[in-house]
């Protein structure tokens, strides 16, 4: 294994100026000074994003650990709290985000094939879907605010497990708030990438920024795929049955 890694980590075997198999030219405008080839630059950026996503898993992991503990301790309160959430809006947002992952994948593919206008178009569609998610989320939060369901001094809740429901809602706002923050960051990144794409910065040889933004975007979607059942679907079968 170490030798394999060493071999891959050793793209400087080629002289920088010679055109290598990847088609990287010696002085491609996107090549930063401390790299030897575009290929190396691409590998570095991709690995960097994957490592970053691992840190993100641990970051959400702390909150999910708290969720797991209290869900085991207070199943009744979890059921009560979960029924307070609007399953239709949650399901709608889930579809929106899965759709945005699809359009993001189209954007990456377009960038790889050098279809500049399609790249820009798909990126814009992805951003619109992301913003749609955030707007729906805003109305969900607003509704909670109106009902005084925000944890803290003004928290009001009728029910046998009001205290533990407050913990549930603390974790709901913690998790979805952190996720929404990631969505806002994601949309901002896509805005920059869209601008770069519209200026013709990407080509089949160099489209790493689109690709790694895509990785980030898919990750944020996957987080939601976990959050939706964990928060909205705790005891729905019971309700339907």
């Amino acid at each position, binding site marked *: 294994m170490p030798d394999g890694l060493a071999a891959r980590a*050793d793209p400087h075997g080629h002289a920088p100026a010679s055109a290598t198999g990847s088609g990287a030219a010696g002085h491609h405008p996107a090549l930063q000074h401390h790299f030897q080839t575009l290929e190396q630059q691409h590998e570095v950026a991709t690995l960097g994003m994957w490592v970053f996503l691992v840190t993100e898993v641990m970051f959400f*992991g702390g909150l999910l650990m708290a969720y797991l503990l209290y869900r085991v301790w207070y199943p009744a309160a979890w059921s009560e709290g979960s029924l307070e959430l609007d399953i239709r809006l949650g399901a709608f947002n889930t579809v929106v985000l899965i759709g945005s992952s699809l359009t993001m994948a189209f954007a990456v593919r377009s960038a790889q094939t050098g279809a500049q206008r399609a790249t820009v178009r798909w990126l814009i569609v992805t951003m619109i879907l992301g913003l749609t998610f955030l707007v729906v989320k805003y109305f969900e939060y607003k509704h909670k605010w109106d009902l005084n369901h*925000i944890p803290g001094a003004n928290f009001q809740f009728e029910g046998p497990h009001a205290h533990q429901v407050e*913990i549930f809602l603390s974790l709901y706002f913690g998790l979805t708030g952190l996720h929404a923050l990631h969505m806002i960051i994601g949309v901002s990144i896509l805005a920059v990438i869209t601008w770069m794409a519209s200026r013709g910065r990407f080509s089949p040889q160099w489209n790493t920024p689109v690709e790694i933004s895509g990785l980030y975007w898919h990750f944020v979607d996957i987080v939601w795929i976990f959050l939706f059942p964990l928060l909205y679907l705790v005891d729905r079968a019971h309700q339907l049955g």
Partner: protein
Amino acid sequence: MTTTVLPRVTYLNVRHGLASWLLTKDHKRIGIMYLIVVSLAFFLGAIFAAGVRIELTTPQGDFVSADTYNRMFTMHGVFMVFFVLIPVVPAILGNFVMPLMIGAKDVAFPKLNLLSWYVFVLGFSLALVALLSGGVDTGWTFYTPYSSNVSNSNVALVGVAVFITGFSSILTGLNFMVTIHRMRAPGMTWFRLPLFVWALYATSLVMILATPVIAITAGMLALERVFGFGIFDPRLGGDPVLFQHLFWFYSHPAVYIMILPPMGVISEVIACFSRKNVFGYSFVAFSSLAIAIFGFLVWAHHLFVAGISPYSAMVFSFLSFAVAIPSAVKTFNWTATLYQGAIWWRAPLIWVFGFLGLFLVGGLTGLFLASLGLDVHLHDTYFVVAHFHYIMVGGAIMGYFAGLHYWWPKITGRMYSDSLAMLSALLVFVGFNLTFFPQFILGYLGMPRRYHAYSAEFQVLNVLSSAGASILAVGYGLIAVYLLYSLWRGEEAGANPWLATGLEWKTESPPIPENFPETPIVNEGAYEYSKREIKVA
């Protein structure tokens, strides 16, 4: 004593002015910028330590009020742990020498590296603001519910500072990991890497996996303080022990963020000054990874008296013992490297000897604390304080100074006074033992930590400890004096004053901005001292 100014372009003189530093992407300059901020934090942390030691010279709480005392030891812990021990070796020495060691022009993400420094400075500034507005009195562990519901000090601000500083550490770990994977020079295979690089790789692993958890935990604490969320609040059915679990899930591995990089330094310095290949290279390399991985499985040894189940306590006790194995592997291999080596008595090696002695005591007393029954007696006493200072100051800071003395000629191009450096190593070693050894006895006799008054029978040992702390202060102060003096009166170091192997010694001192005139090609291991016909005095 030449003061000739060389016309050569180095990373130091390639550009001038404050902006050229504040906007630099050069890993070497960023290392220096960390050196400045971390030294400042060290100075602040030391002042609070001095306050604590002055208070404890008499049994009565007569120097400061109990409340001020709580704030003093908390701010000492916060500054020393988050702003000194965590970044000291990776961010200063790692930033400076790691890319040189692997033959790279820079780290993988130079801009991100600069961003890490700014994030660090932002976190540090927030901690300073918290300090100036009264500080925090919870202890650096911020245990709930005292921190979330009771304390009226500035917990939220320090929580945010820790949250932000965490990202500096995460980004540095990410940067180093990708750099080590993807930026190595041709021929620099994994098993030719210097052991310092292996140690930094293991450290990056811990930074990446553990730091996000303390960040989110500090974030949850801040949510609880500011908005009244109830995640750890026992009034709602929340569990304060959950906070302790999450806190130590980071803070135990954090000890390895502090100690693994100095361990890497020790390997470098020992090989160089015993003129031998490191004994058991791959064992030392893999023991770093083993420590990083085992380190994630022992956190609950801090919770033995917090009401966790006795079965999980037994498992955590056993695993804590297991971590001693890779640490012992390192220590034995270092000793074997020294054995029959051509020992060259220079200051960096003296610091290493200091490290070995103090780390040994710190490590072995860790086993006392990992034993379930004994921990019930020693928990939250001065025994614990002495133990972790032996590891975190005796080990990590001694190792840092070994590395700083070893690479100072490379960083600055100047030699410092070797005899003064040996003297300061001696002062620090003696001062340290005098400060902290009595604390083992105090803890064994039952003196609890974090109290500003104590029973009169403990006074003699406390006075000894405070006396030791003043010697320690002189030792540290002396380092600053001769290192700064060397900057304008030190002899020219030349490219390789220690006749060391390793790529960082193949370029000039101080290095040129792009590190090497052309990408080096590596065709041998990191410590081929025996192949060389180097005669040293």
